């Protein structure tokens, strides 16, 4: 088991712990990006280049920025004073520890794990393309549909409900503006007159 794999794994896990435990949300989002790049590095070491590059493109390039934008849009960039943990956080930790022990025990003691093959698989983009276009054509179309639906849904949910108020009045017609009734010939030039009428209307 190569040393580099261990180092990358440790970096990823530390970054993930930091992402979860830091008080300031923007710091946690940035450490999350570090842990995503760590996971991408692990993929590269497992000879899954395409997955590693996609991971960087999708997670570090898009999702990290999305999370950071959401943090700014909900104005939670400042470090909160009060506690950041929910009330029942102790139970959560207990359940997590339980989950991890079960998983760890299952991994370490199971005999069903296949032995590591000598030759690492060399996957080329052409193979992925062929597989995607032949065996996995249906999932490809569905994932395209899902992505479109998600995009439209996200825009609809996050967009402002009421139509943006039209501050600009409709372009004033070039008719000769009569002075407003009652007050003397107002010295206000035509544009403001239109503005006044539109504003008043």
């Amino acid at each position: 088991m190569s040393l580099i794999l261990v180092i990358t794994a440790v970096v990823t896990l530390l970054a993930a712990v930091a992402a979860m435990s830091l008080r300031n949300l923007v710091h946690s989002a940035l450490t999350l990006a570090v842990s995503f790049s760590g996971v991408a590095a692990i993929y590269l070491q497992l000879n899954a280049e395409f997955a590693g590059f996609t991971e960087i493109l999708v997670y570090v390039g898009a999702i990290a920025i999305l999370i950071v934008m959401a943090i700014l849009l909900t104005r939670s960039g400042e470090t909160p004073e009060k506690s950041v943990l929910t009330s029942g956080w102790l139970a959560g930790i207990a359940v997590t520890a339980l989950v991890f022990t079960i998983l760890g025990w299952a991994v370490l003691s199971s005999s069903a794990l296949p032995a590591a093959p000598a030759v690492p698989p060399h996957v080329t983009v052409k193979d992925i393309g062929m597989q995607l276009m032949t065996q996995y054509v249906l999932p490809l179309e569905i994932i395209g549909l899902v992505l479109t639906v998600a995009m439209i849904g996200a825009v609809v949910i996050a967009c402002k409900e009421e139509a943006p108020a039209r501050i600009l009045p409709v372009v004033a017609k070039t008719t000769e503006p009569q002075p407003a009734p009652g007050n003397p010939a107002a010295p206000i030039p035509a544009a403001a007159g239109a503005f006044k009428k539109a504003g008043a209307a």
Partner: protein
Amino acid sequence: MFGQLDQIFVTLLHWLVGFLPVAWRSLASSLLCIGFVISVFPGLFALVTVIERKGLGRIQNRYGPNRVGPFGFLQFAADGIKSLIKEDIVPRAADHVVHFLAPVVLLIPVLLAYAVLPFGQNMTIADYDAGLLFFFAVGGAVELSIFMAGWSSRNKYSLLGAMRAIAQMLSYEIPLILSAVSVVMIVGSLNLSDIVSHQNHYTFGIAHWYVFTPWGLAGFLIFFIASLAESNRCPFDLPEAESEIIAGYFTEYSGFKFALFFLGEYLGMFAICGLGITLFLGGWTSPVSWLSWIPSYVWFLTKLLAIVFVFIWIRGTLPRLRMDQLMNLAWKFLLPLALVNIVVAGLWHFLGAGALRWLVCAVILAAAYVALGRALMQHQKLGKRIYRFAY
């Protein structure tokens, strides 16, 4: 003789690495390649800053720097030393760790992007099978560092600049990738060396560059405009518009960190220009067959300098785009044109050789260009200006 001259760097690398025991060879060769990139491209950055200031000067009927060194070509040294000497002020309210890390995080992806660019015949540092995807993946990570710079300076101008920069880079990344997709469809591989070798054939002496095909020309146009926006260059330099938001996301940076941002921006520009050359202008191939004795890396460098000069030329000409014009151009013109371009590339592939495909593709693209152009310029009639407050 020209063969050795062409492969001089490759043979030099193998000769140097030959001294080391086998175990250390791969590490040594990658370190040498890194050394090559870190020495050549910052050197090119230094040269281009001077060329840019002199070029802009000449465009504006003045000389440009001609005091430091012969004809002003040591001006970059003066600027470099100035930025080193300048006091590095960090705002008190700034988030010191993130503020310090931002330029570093900007440089990492930019320098990584050079790993896959083919500078010359088999002179690619890391010839990944999915090299193009690697380039775009790493290119996408630059926005994170821009956000870090903007947010950590705790300054409204820098945050606003960072938001504008991210919005601009995100919305121009899509046409950038889609225009590259059309090249990948024709070549059939994401490997940049394959893309260049596909363009390495000659008919009547003219190279098979993709820019000479209708879809390639449209793709290159889209790619060029998107790369201008991706590197925050002239018509799209809203994020660092001095007149509006001082210096955008690097307002609160001074001294060497500011120089690092500058370096990062230029290296990003060279990388994206290098990719444009590889995809559309035949990477290191020579335009005409009787000139192919010139070494391949010289071709790559001349094309790079040519495109950089066009960047400077555009910077001397075009005024800055407003934010909504910028977004309209990306979403209502470049993106649809890129999609049409992909369809046309498909047509080009299935129509087979012959004059028919040239005609069909050219007509479709011209129609799409004119239609989208008219749609974009449709509401630009300069009507009567409405003043909301002053009158």
